[in-house]
């Protein structure tokens, strides 16, 4: 098993694309997009959704820990809010990265694929250099 990743973006396309890109180098890692606002029938609008993020954390978790990556500042706030609603045990296994979204996600996914701990994966995300 491995650490899962949640990709929070204001754009559903960005979140999905980042998961596809990272999956190329991390076939066994749970990569869960949480992009755009709740669709409410139509296409997801630009924005972030507390529910999408909270659900994605649960889906990515499965007991091995989760690292969350975000794009703009309000995505960070939505993610922090979702963290506060986790129960204490689950909360202890989740980290919010301060990282470049695309670049950090690829580096984090590779680290997760290699079986790294949640701290290893967090570090990989945050240290990801721009454009290796």
């Amino acid at each position, binding site marked *: 098993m491995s650490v899962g990743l949640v990709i929070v973006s204001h754009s559903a396309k960005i979140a999905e694309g980042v998961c596809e890109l990272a999956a190329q180098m991390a076939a066994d890692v749970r990569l869960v997009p949480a992009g755009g606002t709740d669709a409410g029938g139509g296409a997801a*609008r*630009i924005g972030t959704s507390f529910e999408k993020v909270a659900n994605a954390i649960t889906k990515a978790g499965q007991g091995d820990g989760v690292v969350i990556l975000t794009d703009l*500042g309000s995505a960070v*706030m*939505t993610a922090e*809010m979702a963290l506060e609603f986790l129960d204490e045990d689950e909360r202890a296994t989740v980290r919010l990265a301060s990282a470049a979204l695309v670049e950090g996600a690829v580096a984090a996914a590779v680290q997760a694929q290699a079986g790294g701990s949640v701290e290893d994966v967090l570090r990989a995300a945050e240290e990801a250099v721009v454009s290796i």
Partner: protein
Amino acid sequence: MALDAGWAQEWLRAAARAVAENRTHLMELDRAIGDADHGENMDRGFAAVVAKLDAGPPPATPAEVLKAAAMTLMSTVGGAAGPLYGTALLRAATSLGDAAEAQPDAVVAMLSAARDGIVARGKAESGDKTMIDAWTPAVEAAATAASAGAGPGAVLAAAANAAQAGAVATDPLVARKGRASYLGERSAGHRDPGAASTALILAAAAEAAGGPG
């Protein structure tokens, strides 16, 4: 009017009306220094709050009302204002506890808890050109009014007036948090949309209390 569960409901309904009326105005403010969605975000969020109130059983305490509204805003607003107002109302609810109605000191404590929640969530300081610049003067004016012996309605009216003045005072500021900070110096000369919506929401609280009393 006593600040009970009925007041809390009326507060949110009045806020929803004010936000709907000012939807275009809030969008114009956000277009100048952001992504133009603040009016749409807030209108969608408060309309969902009203729908939730309409659907649910009558709540027993103001805290219950605010908590339900917080959860709804968090899930429906979509922009920064979602987690910020969501946190504010959650903290306000916690501050009110299970009291059936709020006395002047409890109103001050509630506003202060809301403001602190926004600071905790967004890490903005006074002068960063955010909704904090409406909330902080509101909390201070409420405290001054309460210690001068004002009733709960008058405390809310003082808060609302100060929030409006605080929103106006964001005009010359340079944004240091949120999207407007991308604009740097060019953010000066525009009102912060979140400070403007805060003034509307606090005016709604005072309006729901039926004026000074």
